[in-house]
């Protein structure tokens, strides 16, 4: 009440009209608002940060597990192909005995094919000799062509060339 008196005295000097106005609230409020008012206190939040740390750790573990499975699977499957090429199996082959099983015709045809592929072999039967023969024949035929004919040929195809 002391405050109220001070306030009224103060207002008399600065704004006396305000002392004549009721201070009771005039705005409307829903009926029974104050009687039924209650505060909704939220439950304490869960330790979110810790949960996130666990999840992060689990994420890394899952990624490592998947990577491990992929690498292991890769080794297993590629290893099978390597093992299929069994060197021991080939070391056990008795080459002379296997050779004896082949006929003379089979051996001759194998040797002929191998000679053609390697570029060596019997006279008159290799590809390189056939090519050399063809070049020699062409060179010999060119010596029979006159210089004028050659000059004319070159001038027609590459411009003027003096052979002398």
């Amino acid at each position, binding site marked *: 009440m002391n405050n109220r008196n001070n306030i009224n005295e103060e207002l008399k000097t600065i704004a006396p009209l*305000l002392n004549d106005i009721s201070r009771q609230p*005039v705005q409307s409020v829903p009926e029974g608002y104050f009687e039924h008012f209650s505060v909704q206190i939220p439950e304490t939040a869960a330790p979110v940060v810790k949960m996130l740390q666990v999840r992060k750790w689990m994420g890394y573990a899952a990624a490592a597990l998947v990577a491990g499975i992929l690498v292991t699977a890769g080794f297993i499957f590629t290893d099978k192909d390597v093992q299929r090429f069994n060197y021991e199996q080939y070391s056990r082959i008795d080459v002379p005995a296997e050779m004896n099983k082949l006929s003379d015709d089979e051996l001759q045809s194998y040797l002929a094919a191998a000679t053609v592929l390697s570029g060596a072999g019997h006279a008159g039967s290799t590809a390189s000799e056939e090519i050399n023969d063809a070049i020699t024949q062409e060179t010999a035929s060119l010596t029979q062509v006159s210089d004028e004919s050659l000059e004319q040929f070159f001038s027609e195809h590459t411009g003027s060339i003096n052979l002398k």
Partner: protein
Amino acid sequence: MEDVEIVAAFKKAATKEKAFTLLVKKYQEKLYWHIRRLLPAHEDANDVLQNTFIKVWNGLDSFREDSRLYTWLYRIATNESLSFIEQQKRKAVVDFDQLGDTYSNSIRADENFDANRLEWKLQLAIRQLPDKQKLVFNLRYFDEMSYDEMSSILDTSTGALKASYHHAAKKIEEFIKNH
């Protein structure tokens, strides 16, 4: 129950909820009207009052009894109201000047509004004041606080508060005379 007893009961687990209920019952109406004078819409005032009491629930354990509970509660309610007003201003829908008009319109939209009554003219006049002056005027005129109490709520010197209150009272009287 005295404020000191309420605070002591709140700090004991067994009586915490009962003490809080008593505190809400004791101060809900005063705080509601303090907020409502700053935010004319009931829904806004209700939201801010809820937030105020949630802050009180979370902070009362660490409340230092070297200040009065009453002024501490007003301080929280004031800060919550000002934060709410700031949020409203930041919303792109209305700018600062339009917000003042919106608040004045919500006063006129009240079902009890009567333009001829001085009490409503007073409400419209208060709405024209800057936020700080509005706060100072309301705390002194309606809540009948001393300048010292207001100073502990608003962190402003008593001299500045007195000057602000006098300016506000003169402006309000002028507005009422002219409308």
